[in-house]
Structures are given as structure tokens and as C-alpha cells.
């Protein structure tokens, strides 16, 4: 079986202000089908850049990415990839329903089929009472939920999520985490999830990948073998605290190394 995502020796160099900036260097990552992998790392370490390479928004300067065994561009064409951006990015002239309908519309799904699918998805993110609202009439958390509904409505094989819950308060974030775990359990999707929150990363993932900056690279990986379905009690297990501590060390080590390198 081919892996969902394979990145080999990925490197990305940006031209910036006359100089060159190496955002990623020799980045290697394999995400298996139906695996939940989190990327954590200090700001600017290239997490978004990794996702953008996988979604064919930028072409790597070196190395390669394969998605389901095919190049990202083809995977995008086949609508195998869903992407939740760091900001909700809703179209302000479309209400909630129409925003969630957008991917179906662009894929040419007939309205009679698209409408119930979009409505079901909106119900799953708990926004049924707000279908007619425009984005400016929603809170930040609600907007992000609409963006998630939009990325799920096509049932993509792989979902890339870039700090989807960063703007939410702790309680809502826990809610959304539980909800995402359910969605993940009920479907055969693969999720690559970017976050700054170690607790969130461990609770959700099969694997936590810690990155460091300048150049962006992987410094450590943790396998999380806590059984699913995951529950809040698991945050009190030894495995959770061990991974949390080691990940924190890797992360802060990465952060200080970044500073020293400057």
C-alpha cells in the first residue's frame, strides 16, 4: 500500500529581500494511510511551508513530494486533498451554507446532491442555526469551524490542517479536539495537523513530529501508542507525561538552538 504522503529530502528556498532564505532543508516525512500526524515547532520553522508543498501551492526547490503515490498537482486535481488554512479564509459574499457548498460547486456536483451534503457537514460542526449568516457575523471560532466543514465536505483522503484551533479558547479547543477525533475515527482519512500546542498534538496523533527552524528540519519524532478512542483521562497516563516532557525538551532545545544560530 502506498503511503498517503511521502516527502523526500524536501528543501525550499525563498528569495527574500535580495538574499536567499532556506525555509526547509532535507525534510523527510512519511505519513501512512489513515494515520494522524502532528507537526509542532517554533514559529517560522516551516510547518506551513511543508503543507503548501503537499498541496502544490509552492514547488520545492529540491527533493520530492508524493501524495497517494502521485505528484501533488495530480492529487489536487483528483480532489484527494483537503486544506484548512491558518486563517479561516471564508468568502465574505457567501453565507455559511454557500461557503461550505463551494468545493462541491467547483467540482461540478449537482446542487440536489451538494445541498444535503453541505447541510450534514454544517450540522457536524454545530452551525445549523447559522447557515444563513455571513462570515462577518460569526465569531473567529465559528469561522474556523465553517472552514473545517468546507475542507471535509468533499471527503478527501488527506486533510492538511494548519493550526485550525489556534484562535480558540481552551474549552472550545477541547471540544473541537474531541469532535475531530470522532470525525477521524468515523472516516478513513489521513490527517497532517500543524499546531503549537503539545497537549493537543499528543491527544490527537499517532505520531508527533517536532521541527526546528533555520533551516526548517525535523529534530525528533514520537510515536503515541495510547489506545483510541482517546479520552481526557489519558492526559494523566505515564505515556502522555513522558512524551509531553520529551517533546517539550525537543521543542525548547530546538528554539534555543535557533536563537544561538542567529
Amino acid at each position, binding site marked *: 500500500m502506498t503511503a498517503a504522503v511521502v516527502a523526500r529530502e524536501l528543501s525550499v528556498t525563498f528569495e527574500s529581500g535580495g538574499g536567499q532564505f532556506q525555509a526547509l532543508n532535507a525534510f523527510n516525512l512519511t505519513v501512512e494511510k489513515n494515520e494522524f500526524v502532528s507537526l509542532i515547532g517554533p514559529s517560522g520553522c516551516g510547518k506551513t511551508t511543508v503543507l503548501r508543498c503537499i498541496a502544490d501551492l509552492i514547488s520545492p526547490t529540491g527533493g520530492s513530494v508524493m501524495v497517494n503515490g502521485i505528484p501533488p498537482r495530480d492529487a*489536487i486535481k483528483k480532489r484527494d486533498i483537503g486544506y484548512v488554512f491558518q486563517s479561516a479564509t471564508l468568502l465574505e459574499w457567501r453565507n455559511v451554507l454557500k461557503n461550505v457548498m463551494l468545493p462541491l460547486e467547483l467540482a461540478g456536483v449537482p446542487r440536489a446532491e451538494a445541498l444535503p451534503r453541505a447541510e450534514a457537514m454544517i450540522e457536524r460542526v454545530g452551525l445549523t442555526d447559522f447557515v444563513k449568516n455571513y462570515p462577518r457575523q460569526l465569531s473567529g471560532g465559528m469561522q474556523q469551524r465553517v472552514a473545517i466543514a468546507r475542507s471535509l465536505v468533499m471527503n478527501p483522503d488527506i486533510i492538511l490542517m494548519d493550526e485550525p484551533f489556534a484562535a480558540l479558547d481552551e474549552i472550545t479547543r477541547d471540544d473541537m479536539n474531541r469532535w475531530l477525533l470522532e470525525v477521524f475515527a468515523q472516516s478513513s482519512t489521513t490527517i497532517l495537523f500543524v499546531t503549537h500546542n503539545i497537549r493537543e498534538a499528543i491527544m490527537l496523533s499517532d505520531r508527533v513530529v517536532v521541527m526546528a527552524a533555520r533551516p526548517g528540519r525535523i529534530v525528533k519524532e514520537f510515536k503515541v501508542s495510547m489506545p483510541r478512542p482517546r479520552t481526557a483521562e489519558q492526559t494523566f497516563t505515564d505515556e502522555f507525561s513522558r512524551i509531553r516532557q520529551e517533546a517539550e525538551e525537543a521543542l525548547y532545545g530546538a528554539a534555543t538552538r535557533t536563537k544561538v544560530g542567529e
Partner: protein
Amino acid sequence: MIMASKNQRSKPAAVWHGVWPALLVAVVVIGLWYSASHFWGMPKYILPAPDLILKEAIENPNSLLRNGWVTLVEATTGFAVGVLLAVFVALVLDSWRFLEKGMSPYLVVGLNIPIVAIAPAVIIWFGFGMMSKIVVAAILTFFPVVIYTLKGLKAADRREVDLFSVLSASRIQGLLKLRMPSSLPFFFAALRVASAASVLAAVVAEFIQANAGIGYLILTAAYTNNTPRIWAAVAVSAGIALLFYWVVTVAERKIIPWHASVDARN
């Protein structure tokens, strides 16, 4: 609009609440004006009393209506032609970068053509009937609408462009579902400018040479020193421009109720 408004007034009460400050200003100004003319001895040739202007309008409504109608038709036709042409040209230039680069300096020149300078030439080309006024109004509408619409078509947020790319949208889908909607606020801003400009264009062109229209009426009234008639005509032309502006505003509210500018103005 869609949101629950802060203070829930009944509709007529809300309208009254929005309108009464403007009415008060009108009453005060007209009162001062009336006093200046009748009690403080302001001569009639400077500014005739408001009641004299009203009297002129009531006694001779035909020429006001007939000439006002001519100007209205010229301005609306010119506006419509100018807008249609502008949207077409904007879409063509937008899909053809080379042509856009070549044309854009001249569009800026076009935007800055003084109407008084261009009108005589247009009258020579199209005669002194309505046609030449329509053309002048169309020219003055065309340039702002092309320039703003082109700008609007590029105004889509970088992240929204990424979204469409990730959703594998075709070029035409990107135009119809992203770039055109993002350009609408720009388009309406241009319409607002153009609506006033097209009335101005028609009236100024009538000044230069015409046999009908508000500009023509003002000119003939000036020859006979009929100041009440001049001011009645001025009022009619202002009314036409306001009507235009109002139509654009209503259309904007209906078509882009989601936009911040519409929300803020409510």
C-alpha cells in the same frame, strides 16, 4: 441589515430618525435664505428668494420637465453605455496582461481628460443633438469604471486565491466565483463617481452647444437675466444627480449587502 440592529425601532420611526437632522438643516438654510431675500435686501440677481424659484417652477413647469427629461435621458444612456463598455474592456484587459500593460497609462490619461476640453470635439463629431451629450457622458463614465473594475478584479485576497487553487478551480471558475465578486465593491465605488460625472458631462456638453437640456435651459435663461429660472434648472439637475446616486446606492445594498462599506453606512 441582516444582523439584529442595536436599537429596534419600527421602520417609519427609524427612517424619521435618520432623516430629521437633514430636514432641520434644510429648514434653517431656507429660512435664512428667505430672510436674506425678503428682509435683509439681498438683490434678486445674486440669489432670488426660494419662493420665487418655486413660483417659476410651478408657473413654467413644461420647459423644466422637457429639458430635464432630455438631460436625464442623455445622462442615463451615456452612463449605461459607458458602464457596459467599461466592464467589457476591463474583462478583456484582465485576461490579456500584455494589452493591459500597454493600455493602462492611457486609461489614466483618459480618466484625467477635462470634460470641457473634450466636449467641443465630440460635438463636432456627433452633432449638437443628444448623441454628442450621450457620448460625452459615456466617456466620463467609462474611464473610472474601467480603472476601478480592473483594480477590483485583482483585489482577491492572496489566501483566497490559494483556496481556489487547492480546490482545483478552473480559470473561469476563479473569475466568476472569486475575482468578479471581489471586484464588486470597487465597481460600485466607480459607479458612484460615474453617476455624478455623467450628469455633469451632459449638462456641460449642453452648455457648449445644444437645442435642449438643462444646460441649454440655464444658458437661455441667463441671456434674459431670468435668475429664478436658472436656479430652478439648477435644482432639477441636482435632483437628477441625486436620483442617480440613490439608484446606485440601492443597487449596491441589494447586490453586496455583505460588504463592510454597505454595513457601515446603514
